[in-house]
């Protein structure tokens, strides 16, 4: 448990990282370094995006599955590592 904290802290202190959110498969946030409202927003919206992305990948090839999702926007980059039961979101500003 302490290593989870430490690891999150380490990631958070990396250059350009704006926030880290861990949520469960329903989109309910478990742990986050952002404030409550942003956390909830990210968790909910990313959850929907994940569902869509995963279904897209599987529709194209049923043997395939989604492993990583990176959304690059003008201001930052959202990296999502999904899993069966949880997903990890890291928001980063790559130009920093």
């Amino acid at each position, binding site marked *: *448990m302490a290593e*989870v904290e430490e*690891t999150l802290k380490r*990631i958070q202190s*990396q*250059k*350009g*990282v704006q926030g880290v959110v*861990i949520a*469960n498969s*329903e*989109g*309910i*946030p*478990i*742990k986050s370094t952002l404030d*409550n*409202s942003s956390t*909830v927003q990210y968790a*909910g919206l990313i959850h929907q995006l994940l569902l869509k992305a995963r279904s897209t990948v599987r529709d194209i090839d049923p043997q395939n599955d989604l492993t*990583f999702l*990176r959304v*690059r926007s003008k201001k930052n980059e959202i*990296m999502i*590592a999904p*899993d*069966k*039961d*949880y*997903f*990890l979101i*890291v928001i*980063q500003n*790559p*130009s920093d």
Partner: protein
Amino acid sequence: MTASSNSDVRPVGKLQRVQGGAHHRAEVGEDKPIHGLYQVGGQGDWSVVGRFLGMCCFRNWDHTGGLPQDGDLLQAEAQIVDVAEDLGELVCTGPQQPGTDAIWSCSFPLPQSTSALSSLGLVQWRGGSEGGNGVNCRGWGRLGTSRIAQVDFPPKELVSYSKETQTLLTTHPLEVEEEEEDEEMDVKPGLDSEPPDEDDAKETKDVLRELTEEERQQILHSAEFQSFFDCSIRVMERALAEDTDIYFDYSGRDLDVSGGSSLSFSRLFYDEHWSKHRVITCLDWSPQYPELLVASYNNNEDAPHEPDGVALVWNIKFKKATPEYIYHCQSPVVSVGFARFHPNLVVGGTYSGQIVLWDNRSHRRTPVQRTPLSAAAHTHPVYCVNVVGTQNANNLISVSTDGRMCSWSLDMLSQPQETMELVYNKSKPVAVTCMDFPTGDVNNYVVGSEEGTVYTASRHGSKAGICEMFDGHQGPVTGISCHSAVGPMDFSHLFITSSFDWTVKLWSTKHNRPLYSFEDNADYVYDAMWSPVHPAMFAAVDGMGRLDLWNLNNDTEVPTASVIVEGASALNRVRWSATGKEVSVGDSEGRVWVYDTGELSVAHSDDWARFARTLVEIRASHGDEEEEGPMELSS
């Protein structure tokens, strides 16, 4: 009613506060009831209306058991009160006639003293009113102290969800449904459409519910979460570390165009623990791995328990900001270099005269080999170490400031293979501060001395020792560099020197006077080095934090590019990387700055010819000034 300003101060007695006085602050002319009961011990009773901490008012009145009235007399009848605490002496400073306002002062420390208030100690009491008598307070006002009530409102917590339940999803809507339905039935018996809607709404709301702390902890401790976290965090860190910007536009629309053709800052190497408060004494790039750079540091005066000599190996290929290898030794390291034919070894020359060898195959941070501190080796600081020769026959050459040159074999550092005293004209030895070998030469080399003279010397042969003297600098020579760019023409007879006399001078081994003097600096020039790829370029650093790149084909009067490092600390060393694309400078604060030279240092094929022409021009212009002309020396 006028209050006369007769200030007649008489102590009356101690003012005592009765517990339970309420708090109210009366303003002048205020028509409000104010509470609080005070008693002045011994001398009658005063009913103080008001709060003693603020603007209080109290009058002396004649108690008839009721409320104080306007014009009450000074003397009052006894009133049974509970004495609580002594507040201080009550002093009357005004007239004491009935019907007039009496000015009473009492000095006491305020119970809740703030630093400003406690110094006051004197509170002015003014008259006020009670019971709606409407008596105005008169009297001069002296600033009274007022208590600031501090109220702390906790910040408003924004809760985004309206519901927080612990029951399971499946049961919840049913229960609520039933309740709702019951209520609905009671209120609106006819409407059936509402419950299903509410049902859906409640279900979606339930899906978005927050997890309670226990649930969170439970999840975080579960094994599957740990395994998920392990895997995904690994991938995430890799993804995070690669921060290349895929949107980079090479057309330079987003950047300023000048970025490519000038000196641009690339990296800064600094370690909090090992670099702080240490001056960088030497830099060297690895011949085998062009991305490795070793920097040696002087001692840290603020940390006497730390090792005096530190050498750090930095890597410019990776973005990590910590050194690849950390080496230290007991004596300050004043020169360092990678052993050219031994990729694992780093050679250091120390202030004590010892030469130390570090090996990156061993895990030790201390040297694996050391030369002995004996009179056979060096006893003075070794400012120059250099590995010359070939793969099979190489030697470590070291020169110390007492003029002794030693040649060592890297396998055996217990005693030098040969030693030589560098003396000029059989008089005193030369105090060598810097040394360089021309490209490809293992026998002849040039040294700069503390007196400002430069000498050529040979290791072997009939003229072993100092050969020629070159005089020109007016201060100690700090850096010397032989021309090293290999190209169609050979300029290896050229060398540059930097000195405390604010100049960099260009010499040829064929003439004992400088060919040219570059005088653009305004401080000690601490180091200079030819570019390894461009025949006409060299870099120089000075004590004002300036890094200059000179391109003699462009201009011999001013540097082609110049930059002042951040912080403008004195720069001690400059070294080009082997490719000539980067320049590293070390400063007096322990920082290594790596600058990208970009387009500037790219050598074109005609640069050699142009440089030859430049040299001719330099010689021509310089030769006019000197009547005697430079003496031709046999090289």
